[in-house]
């Protein structure tokens, strides 16, 4: 089997492990999921289940059947896209999640594009000018920024930019008024709401990308082929762009891929701080309301998403490196 095939099998096994965990975890809790839900006095939101909701829940968990049958129902339900029934929203979990995903993509996706691109550029410059004032300055700035936990950084930005200076909204993804008008006004409003949470994410994850690029570039710049290129008298910028950067990018792809999970969670923290209506806020709310089916569904979607991203990065890595590609052909 080729490398790509092995990878896919490996990811399938991981997915199955996660699915199984997702199935057993609520059933492993003391009592059954229903009694846990109903009898928990510590719940932040008291839950009043109607007969219909109760029936929905009972049907979802299928607790009267043997475990193997429950497990089969769960897997075949997932295959049909049935993620269960949300207690808090009294709606299918799948549709609740779908309504939130776009906001997480908007916030996390655009921010990721910015910090990945910016991190690579700054890291490359820093490595090229190693030991210079620019390098040291960048290192220090990036270190001091990267140590802030995203939720705390977000709070500080809110205090100054929203409360003190009134420049940006304190939270949310859009205002109702702009959403009603639509068109350019809506785009402007969305961007306005994006700035603070987006900035928090960029500042949080830029340092990681910057450091990997810098380290990777430093390694590559010492290689023989870079020395050869230099000794041929090629323009320094060409040496960097054509000879050094492409080789330095390979480890960056892997490291970025391995951090996807962390970045996705970071987006969720930032969402909670800014009350941004994405997946993170959804998980937070579901946790507070003890809406376990929703919590399970949201995590499943998050983890599958991260797994797919990782798999894609793994496969792309093989394609990117001609040495790996040719070795396979």
């Amino acid at each position, binding site marked *: 089997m080729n490398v790509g095939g092995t990878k896919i099998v490996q990811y399938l096994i991981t997915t199955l492990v996660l699915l199984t965990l997702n199935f057993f975890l609520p059933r492993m809790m003391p009592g059954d999921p229903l009694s846990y839900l109903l009898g928990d006095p510590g719940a932040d939101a008291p839950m009043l289940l109607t007969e219909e909701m109760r029936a929905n829940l009972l049907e979802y968990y299928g607790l009267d059947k043997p475990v193997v049958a429950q497990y089969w129902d769960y897997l075949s339900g997932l295959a049909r896209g049935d993620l269960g029934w949300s207690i808090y929203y009294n709606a299918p979990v799948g549709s609740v999640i779908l309504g939130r995903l776009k906001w997480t993509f908007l916030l996390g996706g655009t921010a990721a594009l910015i910090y990945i691109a910016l991190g690579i550029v700054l890291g490359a410059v820093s490595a090229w000018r*190693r*030991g210079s004032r620019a390098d040291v300055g960048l290192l220090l700035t990036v270190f001091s920024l990267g*140590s802030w*936990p995203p939720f705390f950084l977000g709070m500080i930005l809110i205090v100054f930019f929203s409360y003190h200076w009134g420049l940006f909204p304190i939270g949310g993804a859009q205002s109702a008024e702009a959403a009603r008008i639509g068109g350019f006004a809506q785009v402007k409003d969305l961007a306005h709401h994006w700035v603070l949470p987006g900035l928090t994410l960029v500042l949080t994850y830029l340092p990681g990308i910057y450091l990997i690029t810098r380290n990777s570039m430093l390694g590559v*710049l010492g290689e023989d082929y870079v*020395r050869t290129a230099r000794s041929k008298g090629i323009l320094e910028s060409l040496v960097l762009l054509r000879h050094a950067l492409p080789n330095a990018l390979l480890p960056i792809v892997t490291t970025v891929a*391995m951090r996807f999970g962390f970045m996705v969670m970071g987006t969720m923290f930032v969402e909670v701080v800014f009350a941004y209506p994405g997946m993170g806020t959804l998980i937070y709310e579901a946790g507070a309301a003890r809406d376990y089916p929703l919590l399970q569904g949201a*995590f499943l979607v998050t*983890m599958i998403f991260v797994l797919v991203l990782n798999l894609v990065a793994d496969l792309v890595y093989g394609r990117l490196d001609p040495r790996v590609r040719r070795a396979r052909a």
Partner: protein
Amino acid sequence: MHRVDHWLGVVGWGLLALFSLAAVSAPGVSPHDPTAMHAPMLPPSLSHPLGTNDIGQDILSELLYGARFSLLVGCLAAGFSTVAGVFLGVLAGYYDRLGFVIMRVVDIFLAVPRFPLIVFLAAFLKPGFWTLVLFFTLFGWTKTTRLVRSQILSQRHDGYVEAAVAVGVNDRRILLRHLLPGTLSVALVRFIVEFQHVILAESGLSFLGLGDPTVKSWGSMLRYAFEYPTIFISDVWIRWAAPPGLCITLVVLGLTFVGFSLETRVNPRLNGKRG
């Protein structure tokens, strides 16, 4: 000439020493029991240098005890996962068959998005101190194992190891005396990175209300401050939300500095002059 990474390391160790000292001496130096209730929302005074929170607990005392919790979870989890990672990595590098099995398990663990999974587990299992340590250990060893294994693979055929094999030294002694010492620098860097990761993750969990509710931690302090309705309108956040946030930031910063200076020293590719 002192290079950047040298004095960054010095600052880093200084910060860590400072916080460790605070954590160790918390019972002696904190002005109050962090769970005792005084009058709520007291402004700073001699008796309460940072005032009290919404239920009347002394904020400075909370902060000092929070250092204990955060640092202890981080240190233990990072320590356990590094030791486990080195142990399995050495075995995986030295014994081929066992190595194959270990590396397949590593592959599965590495593919799991570990942070979302830890949050998920925490949401269901409501972890206490040792459960948290267990989670972070369970998901923290794999990278170390992979690095240590490749280190062992490259050392295995070095002259001094082959010589030891040739004179009939037993496996245990070869592993402990000849192979293990070479992996210690990798292990140290991994310990620092893991420590940092756990501190951030643990405070994140507590911030989301998924940590141990009975224990004072910096993350849970931030959570309660953040949930206080008028926290950002007045200047209360400066003495309530900012201190725990800054503590997390400074510890992570200290670890970053230490890790950076160690990594530069350990990794010859970063150490050499360019070109």
